[in-house]
């Protein structure tokens, strides 16, 4: 069999059918169903022989072909003539019609895919270079390059970057229980400060803290800053924050 070489190289049953029709050099609008079905079944048989897993779509198509074949065997026109008038007016639908339409549609996109392949190849033959870094040409008074971007957009962009994998649709709502309150956290930080005088934000945690823990701590610090109990220093963005106790204010603490 000539198509043995391409055994599993078909994209699906439609692809295989198009190949068989093409090989048999028959009109796609007038498919000799008996012949094509036989060849199709033969192909499946060969696949089986070679122990290639046959996708269910191929089997569904086999059933469809057999169905069409049996419908084609039913007598038509001659009989219709002897039918009562109202049934005669019913338009005869070729059992192959739906399949032919599907094949034509698929063939169209197969051609388009070839076109795209062509473009892909052409495109791969030309090269460009990355844009130059224009920062040396930046004038001192700069426009805000992110004037139209909000923080929300930034978070959104991050989520989008993280969530590109298809996620399962099931959503599990997690209920977060406050393991530690802001009040308690303030107390802990104060204790820590009374020993060391100052502490790094990162030192407030051991191991890998939960997000709730980080936020609670952060809010505790903000609260303490508001009450002038501590001072915070950060040399540059995302540098560790250094927390220093404000002398004399400890007594006022109401926590």
């Amino acid at each position, binding site marked *: 069999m000539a198509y043995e070489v391409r055994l599993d190289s078909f*994209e*699906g*049953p*439609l*692809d295989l059918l198009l190949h068989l029709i093409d090989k048999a050099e028959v009109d796609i*609008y007038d498919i000799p169903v008996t012949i094509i079905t036989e060849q199709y079944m033969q192909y499946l048989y060969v696949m089986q022989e070679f122990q290639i897993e046959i*996708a269910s*779509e191929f089997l569904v*198509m086999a059933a469809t072909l057999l169905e069409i074949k049996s419908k084609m065997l039913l007598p038509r026109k001659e009989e219709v003539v002897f039918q009562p008038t109202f049934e005669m007016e019913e338009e005869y639908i070729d059992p192959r019609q739906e399949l032919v*339409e*599907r094949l*034509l*549609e*698929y*063939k*169209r*996109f*197969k*051609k*388009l*895919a070839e*076109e*795209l*392949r062509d*473009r*892909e*190849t*052409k*495109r*791969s*033959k*030309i*090269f*460009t*270079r*990355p*844009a*130059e870094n*224009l920062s040396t040409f930046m004038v001192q008074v700069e426009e805000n390059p992110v004037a139209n971007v909000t923080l929300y957009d930034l978070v959104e962009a991050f989520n989008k970057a993280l969530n*590109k994998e*298809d996620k399962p649709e099931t959503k599990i709502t997690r209920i977060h229980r406050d393991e530690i309150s802001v009040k308690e956290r303030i107390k802990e930080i104060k204790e820590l400060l009374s020993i060391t005088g100052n502490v790094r934000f990162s030192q407030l945690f051991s191991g890998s803290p939960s997000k709730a823990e980080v936020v609670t701590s952060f809010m505790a610090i903000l609260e303490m800053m508001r009450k002038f109990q501590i001072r915070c220093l950060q040399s540059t963005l995302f540098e560790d924050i250094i927390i220093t106790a404000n002398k004399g204010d400890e007594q006022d603490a109401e926590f």
Partner: protein
Amino acid sequence: MQNFDVEEIKSVIEGLLFVSGDEGLDLKTIADIVDLPVEQARELIHQMQLDFRQSRRGVQIIEIANTFQFATLPDHAKYYEKLASSPSHSTLSQAALETLAIIAYKQPITRAEIEDIRGVKCEKAINTLMSKKLIQDAGRSETTGRPILYRTTTEFIEYFGLKNIGDLPPAPSIEDSDGVEEEVDLLFQKWNEQKA
């Protein structure tokens, strides 16, 4: 520009395209910078494209995704392959290409609709195309189950070196099929509406 020195403006445009690299520059920006009406800038760029060919320059000006940019010549590919990376170096599988073709021409479209046309599952192809950013979610269909709709991205246009989405190869018409031809016309109509 007070003294309209064509050669100088061409020279400036060359420099602008050079520094913009594969980001390209749209006509409006070029026109603004050289202080010319858009149509005049377009005319100059077309002249430059001709100049470049005539003087056998090693680069050409191409139009991709509504921007102009420099690119090397296809005939010279063999010299550059070792040095440069091309965006289309990794070739897509047949399954991915077929899926992409269907999305490009029928967007927005659901996975089930694509599978109907291809006659096979295409979850894998869709995942590949998503991870290569050639397609993206386009909301959800109003039909039962509200399945995700897919559409092509700007990266898709860049990957295939198209001028814009309307620059897609025309859908081939199938011989003697009135129905299909009509459908093709309809598609084009849709495209044009989208472009407008």
